[in-house]
């Protein structure tokens, strides 16, 4: 069974600055995927970034990047040049290849962006 832990219930950042959201996970599988989803006040879940565990290179999507530390089972999300529209709940999730792409989600981190 997988577990995903987000230890920061709330974070805040000044507009244009950088913030890092933490996530740790536990899995017994060797082949798995990791994701960050964003949930704005509309509550629509939006895929932000994904990482394949077998790839050593950290994934990047525009202002969003991850720091994937496989040995430490850590998967943090860095948001650069934060914008007001980045304010949302962010969820870390893991999925195992052998489980039909079922995802296990963390409890989320509420990000506030201050103008």
């Amino acid at each position, binding site marked *: 069974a997988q577990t995903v832990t987000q230890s920061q219930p709330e974070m805040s950042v000044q507009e244009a600055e950088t913030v890092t959201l933490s996530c740790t996970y536990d899995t017994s599988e060797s082949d798995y995927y990791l994701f960050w989803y964003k949930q704005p006040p509309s509550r629509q*879940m939006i*895929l932000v970034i994904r990482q394949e565990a077998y790839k050593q290179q950290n994934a990047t999507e525009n202002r969003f990047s991850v720091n994937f530390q496989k040995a430490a089972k850590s998967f943090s999300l860095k948001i650069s040049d934060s914008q007001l529209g980045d304010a949302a709940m962010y*969820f870390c999730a893991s999925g195992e290849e052998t489980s*039909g*792409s079922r995802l296990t989600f963390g409890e989320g981190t509420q990000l506030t962006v201050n103008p």
Partner: protein
Amino acid sequence: SQTIHQWPATLVQPVGSPLSLECTVEGTSNPNLYWYRQAAGRGLQLLFYSVGIGQISSEVPQNLSASRPQDRQFILSSKKLLLSDSGFYLCAWSVGDSQYFGPGTRLTVL
């Protein structure tokens, strides 16, 4: 491009009444389909997933059920709602490892 629809967007139902939430996906074939529930301020709990027509796996035993009558249609049902069934219900689809979510249904059971 692929799109996913859920309806209704909001629902208020009395305790003991039946429930039917519908999810449809466009623009893809043979997707995996998922139902999640989210309590206020919490993460997502996987309720059901389906890898094909008529194939349903339940993750959490409760008074809810799911059906997949067509390739791109996924239905969440209950015969008698409980107060504890209140929450935000999200449908998702995947072809491959990434899941994409619908807009959700906010269910309030009174």
